[in-house]
């Protein structure tokens, strides 16, 4: 049975697992980006999360929000490209609503919702534009109903991660309207959005961190 709250240990485990998964899927993410972008998404995130892992390792952050803020600023200053400011803002907003030693199931939903808001505020993409928003939007919706139904934080994250993964898969048939892939128009159809794919990986890491 999973715990009723998540604490800073979860946030630190998340960083470890996120870094692992991003590094592991580096080539795959870049390959997705090569097909409809410029082929650097995996490299960008691997560089960023490697720096994040080192930063979090050396920090004495004691709240979930403290860790997430470090994730945000480190991503902002190491990733570059579109994903750097987008993920950076997402984690910054998430950090703001989670500056507590423990967060509960509804807190997880609030955190994810803040992250999505950050991405939208920065990137101004709509649902269906074939971006990471298409992974985060169903993830937040799933987290909301899961939390409302009384699930544990781990269950909320699992629901969010699964929805994000489905959201990423669902970008395949879309025509991109934002980001580099939009230059391809119809030719972007049939390819998965790399940012949606990496978002699903990150949320999966968050869910696995909660299960441990």
């Amino acid at each position: 049975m999973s715990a009723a709250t998540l604490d800073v240990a979860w946030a630190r485990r998340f960083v470890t697992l996120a870094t692992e998964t991003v590094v592991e899927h580096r080539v795959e993410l870049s390959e997705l980006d090569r097909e409809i972008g410029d082929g650097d998404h995996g490299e960008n995130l691997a560089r960023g999360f490697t720096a994040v892992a080192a930063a979090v390792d050396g920090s004495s952050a004691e709240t979930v929000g403290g860790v997430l803020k470090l994730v945000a600023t480190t991503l902002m200053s190491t990733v570059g490209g579109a994903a750097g400011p987008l993920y950076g803002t997402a984690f910054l907003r998430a950090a703001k609503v989670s500056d507590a030693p423990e967060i509960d199931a509804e807190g997880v939903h609030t955190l994810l919702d803040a992250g999505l808001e950050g991405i939208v505020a920065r990137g101004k993409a709509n649902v269906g534009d074939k971006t990471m928003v298409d992974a985060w939007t169903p993830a937040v919706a799933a987290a909301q109903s899961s939390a409302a139904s009384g699930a544990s934080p781990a269950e909320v994250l699992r629901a969010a991660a699964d929805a994000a993964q489905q959201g990423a898969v669902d970008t395949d048939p879309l025509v991109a309207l934002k980001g580099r892939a939009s230059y391809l128009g119809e030719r972007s159809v049939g390819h998965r959005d790399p940012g949606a794919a990496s978002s699903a990986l990150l949320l999966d890491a968050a869910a696995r961190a909660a299960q441990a």
Partner: protein
Amino acid sequence: MKKLINDPSTVTQEAVEGFVAAHEDIVVQLDGLVVARKGGAVQGKVGLVSGGGSGHEPLHAGFVGVGMLDAAVPGAMFTSPTPDPILVATKAADGGAGVLHIVKNYTGDVLNFETAAELADAEDIEVATVVVNDDVAVEDSLYTAGRRGVAGTVLVEKIAGVAAERGDDLQAVLAVAQKVNAQVRSMGVALTACTVPHAGKPSFDLAEDEIEIGIGIHGEPGRRRIPLASADEITDLLLDPVVEDLGLSGGENVLLLVNGMGGTPASELSIVYRHARKQLEARGVTVARSLVGNYVTSLEMQGASVTVLVLDDELTALYDAPVRTAALRWEL
């Protein structure tokens, strides 16, 4: 992948170090790989900062110097730089009269420069931004991230650079930059893809008899793929949309820039220039200024872009004014 590199992860750093050493009479290197004008910011002059992913050399570091940029921020290969070094560059360029950010229109560049501008604002440096978007290959800018910034960027940097040099204030320099951006259009073609070092394989796949029309400068695929054609035919495919978008009807004076993508022999650029010029003249357009060479590249990509800037007396005079950078240099 065959490259003269030591390690994909050190390419950008070593390239910047080498570049700065080779041009130590013109530039210095600051923290975070920033390349700045030697001697520091010019007091009272509007500072010009540009930057973006590496792999487009000589853009931008090659255009740092008298008459153009005060600082350039090279990101990782084909990846826009993060806000920190942009802030370093902005501070280095600030002579108390504000700083103009010249940003190519890519989501990553726009977002990172935006953040840096906020950080600069927090340090009381006034920043104005011109977003360059000269690439007519992107047709429906309503349904995309908008037109991209490509070779026209060099002309924005050159002309706004001189406006700053002659003492225009920030709003005036911004206005000149926007005017250039409004009057410049480009379109490119790739014969071969390029290979980003850490990717290790070509950014896209082109068959031996295919070319990509409307290519971006990051190896992003373009408007469409067509069978290899003659240089004159390809030049028409690049020039026609540019002329159309600018609405040239004859009688205009223009600057014609034929830009190599990095791996194109100079002789082929001359062949493209020859036909583009003929076609412009046939439409009654006067080619008053010309630039032919590798200015905004995509690593070793074979291909070229055609850029047309509509000139008036002001832009012509600013373009002609002295410039002393690694990649563009003249005194008279």
